[in-house]
C-alpha cells in the first residue's frame, strides 16, 4: 500500500489524535495511531481506552486504496513536524514496516497490525442533540477548573453534563467548591438526563472546540458520549457513578451581598495571596461598610493587607477562604462587576457576575 500526502494535510489531524495517546503505555498498541484507508479517505485514530479521537483526511486520486495499519504515534508525529512546510510524504507499507520518504529523507518505522487496535465503540441506542460549539466550550471553560483530581470519590474527577428542558448545564466540584454553568439550547431530555465526562475527556474537548456558532453533534447513551465536529470525532467513556446532589449545597437566602469591580477585587486578592501559606492559601476577608479588607499571613509571620472598595451595607462579617478558589472563580467570570452572596462565616459563599447568573460558583469557607 502506497500513500502520498502533503505534510500540511497530515500534520494537524495527526497532532489532534496523538494528543490522546498517553506517553507511557503498558500496551504497545496504545502508543500507536491507526491509519484506516478506504474510499479515498484516511481516518487517523488515537485512543487511551477512555478517550478516542478520530480525524479523517481526503486522499486525492487514491480512491482505490484500501487497507489499515498502525504506526508509533509520537515518532510519526515528530517526523511530520520536523519536515519542511511544503514537504510531500510517500508512505509505503510492506511486510510489517512503514517506509516514509520525503525529499532526501527516509524513515523506516515498525508497525503493529490494525487488528490489535481497540475497535471504535458502537454507541447503541444513542440520543442525539445539536449544540453550537461555542456554547459547549463556554460550558466547559466556566466550570472545568473545579473538577477534582484523583479523588477517591471518582465521580468527582469529571464534569457533570445535565440535559435540561431547553438547555444544558455543567457542574464541577472537588468537594470544597463548585462551579455551575447553564446555556440555553434546543434540548428535550429523554431517559438520560445526567452524564459525567471524565477529566481527560473534558481536557481534550476543550482543545477541540472553538468559540463559534458551528453546530456540533452529540450522541450519548449511558456509557459513552460522542461528539462530531466536521472531520473530527471525539468519543469518551462516561464515569459510571452518581454525582452528588449539588442543588442541596447551593446556598439560598444569603443576605450579605457584596458588589465589587471584578478586576479590582481580583488584583487585590492576587497581590495579597503572594504572602499566603503555599499549602493552605488562606485569606481572611472582613466585610465592613463599603469596604472589603483582605488579610493574609504565612508561617514566616509575613503579612499582607488589601483594602478593596466595594458596595456593601450589610452586617460586619469575618470569613476565611482558600484564596485560590476565589481567584479561580473571579478569573472565570466574564462580567466587569461581580456579586458575592454570603450568610455567615461557616456557610458557603456564592459568586457570580452581576446580572448574569448563568455561571455560578460556590465556595466553602476555611476556619482560620
Amino acid at each position: 500500500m502506497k500513500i502520498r500526502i502533503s505534510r500540511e494535510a497530515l500534520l494537524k489531524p495527526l497532532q489532534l489524535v496523538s494528543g490522546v495517546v498517553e506517553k507511557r503505555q503498558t500496551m504497545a498498541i496504545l502508543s500507536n495511531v491507526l491509519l484506516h484507508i478506504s474510499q479515498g479517505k484516511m481516518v487517523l485514530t488515537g485512543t487511551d481506552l477512555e478517550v478516542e479521537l478520530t480525524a479523517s483526511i481526503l486522499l486525492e486520486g487514491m480512491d482505490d486504496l484500501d487497507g489499515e495499519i498502525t504506526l508509533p504515534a509520537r515518532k510519526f508525529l515528530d517526523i511530520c513536524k520536523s519536515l519542511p512546510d511544503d514537504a510531500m510524504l510517500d508512505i509505503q507499507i510492506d511486510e510489517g514496516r512503514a517506509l516514509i520518504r520525503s525529499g532526501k529523507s527516509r524513515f523506516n518505522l515498525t508497525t503493529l497490525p490494525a487488528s490489535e487496535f481497540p475497535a471504535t465503540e458502537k454507541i447503541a441506542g444513542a440520543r442525539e442533540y445539536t449544540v453550537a460549539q461555542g456554547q459547549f466550550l463556554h460550558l466547559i471553560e466556566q466550570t472545568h477548573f473545579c473538577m477534582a483530581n484523583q479523588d477517591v470519590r471518582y465521580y468527582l474527577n469529571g464534569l457533570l453534563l445535565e440535559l435540561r428542558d431547553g438547555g444544558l448545564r455543567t457542574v464541577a466540584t472537588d468537594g470544597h467548591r463548585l462551579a455551575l454553568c447553564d446555556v440555553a439550547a434546543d434540548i428535550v431530555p429523554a431517559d438520560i438526563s445526567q452524564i459525567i465526562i471524565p477529566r481527560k475527556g473534558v481536557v481534550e474537548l476543550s482543545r477541540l472546540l472553538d468559540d463559534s456558532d458551528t453546530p456540533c453533534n452529540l450522541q450519548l447513551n449511558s456509557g459513552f458520549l460522542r461528539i462530531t465536529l466536521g472531520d473530527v470525532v471525539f468519543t469518551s467513556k462516561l464515569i459510571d457513578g452518581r454525582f452528588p446532589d449539588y442543588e442541596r449545597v447551593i446556598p439560598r437566602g444569603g443576605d450579605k451581598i457584596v458588589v465589587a469591580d471584578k478586576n479590582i477585587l481580583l488584583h487585590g486578592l492576587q497581590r495579597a495571596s503572594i504572602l499566603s501559606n503555599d499549602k493552605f492559601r488562606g485569606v481572611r476577608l472582613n466585610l465592613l461598610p463599603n469596604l472589603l479588607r483582605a488579610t493574609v499571613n504565612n508561617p514566616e509571620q509575613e503579612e499582607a493587607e488589601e483594602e478593596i472598595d466595594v458596595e456593601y451595607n450589610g452586617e460586619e462579617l469575618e470569613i476565611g477562604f482558600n484564596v485560590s478558589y476565589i481567584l479561580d472563580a473571579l478569573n472565570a467570570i466574564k462580567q466587569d462587576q461581580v456579586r458575592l452572596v454570603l450568610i455567615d462565616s461557616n456557610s458557603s459563599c456564592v459568586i457570580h457576575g452581576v446580572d448574569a447568573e448563568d455561571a455560578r460558583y460556590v465556595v466553602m469557607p476555611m476556619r482560620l
Partner: protein
Amino acid sequence: MDKLWERAIILVDMNAFFASVEQLDRPELRGRPIGITNGAEGTCIITCSYEARAFGIRTGMRLREARERCAHFQVIPSRPGRYVAVSSAIMQALHNITPEVEVFSIDEAFLDVTGCQRLLGPPEQIARLVKQTVYEVSGLYCSVGVSGDKTTAKWAAKQQKPDGLTVVPPWQAAERLREVALTELCGIAKGIGSFLAERGIHRCGDMARLPVGELSRRFGNLGRRIWLMAQGMDPSPVETRIAAPKSIGHGKVMPPATTDREVILDFLDHMSFKVGARLRRHQMVAREFSIGLRADTGWLGGQYMLSVPGNDGGQIFRLCRLMVERHWRGEPVHQVQITASDPRPVDGQLELFAAEEGATGKGNAVMDAVNERFGEYTLTPARLLRRGGMHNVIAPAWRPTGHRKTV
C-alpha cells in the same frame, strides 16, 4: 571579657545513656560491665557500660559474643519509660539555659548559645554550666563539645569520653579538623565518602581543593553543606522547630501465627485508635493509610484511602476491615502495621458534602482532652477494653519532643 564568638554551638552527649541510668538507679551495678537489651527477650546489646566497653563489648553485639568476651557480663532488660523520663528531664533543664535546643536523639542535644554569651559568659563556661545542669537534674555525666558549628561541636564531643569537655573555637575549627577522616563527621556516610575518595578527598583538609560545584552537582544542597562542614563552617542551624512528620504509624507484634479473625481485628482496631489519636494530637489529618498484616510469605495488605482526609480511629478501622476482607485468606499472621502515609495539618477547609464529622469529631476532642490529663486509655472506646496490658517498646528514633509523644 573575651571576644564574643560569632556562633557558639554546644553538643551534649549522654555517656552510655541507658547503661548509666541503670547504674544510677541500681548502685550494685556501678563499676560493673553491664549491657542493656530490648526488653527481656532481646538478644542484642543496645547500649553497654564503659566497664563493658573495656572488654571490647559494643552496641549491636550479640549477647553470646559479649559473654565470651567477659564472663561476668550482666544483662539488664531495657526500661524505656524510665529512660524517657530521665531524657525529658534533662532536655527540659537544658531549655533553662537557652530556648534554642535541638533534641537530636534521646541522649543528644544541640544548644545554640550564641545569644547567651553576654549573659552566661564565654562558651566554655556555658559548657561547664551545661554539664553541671545535666548532673544536677539527672545524676549522670555527659560529654560536651563546643564550637562555632554543629558538625565541629559534635566531633569535639567525641574527643573525650566519658565526662569530657572539648572546646574548638570557630577560628581553629578548620585547622583542628584538617587531619580528621571525612567519614568521622556526622552525616558523611559510605556513599558520599566513596564519591569523595574517588576524587582523592579523604581528610577534611583535602576538601578545600575540590570545587564546591563537584559536590553540589551530584548531591545538591547536601553536597554544598558537606563541603562547608569539612572546613569547620557547617551552616546548618540548631533546629528548634520540630519538622512535621512524614508519616504516622503504629505497629504491633501479635501472638505467633494468629489465625483468629477477631484477634486480628482487635489488634487493627487498637492500632487505628492509636494512629487516629496521634494524628489528632498533632492537629493533622491523613487520607492514605497503608495497612498491613505480616504473614510467613511477607506483608499482606495495601494502601487504603478515606474519601475526605480524617483522623478518627473508627474511620481508619473501617479501612482495616476492608483490608482484611480483601487480602486475608486465613493464613497465620504475626504482626499488624497501620501507617498514615500523607499526614498534613488540619487546614480548616470546610467540606461541601460533609457527612461524617460532627459528633465523632467532638467525641474525639473530649476523649483526647481526658487522656491528655489522666493518661493514655483513661477514656477509650469500649471495644478496645479487650486489648489490655500491652507493653510499649522504645524505637531507636524516639525523641522526648516531636510527634512521638509516647513510647
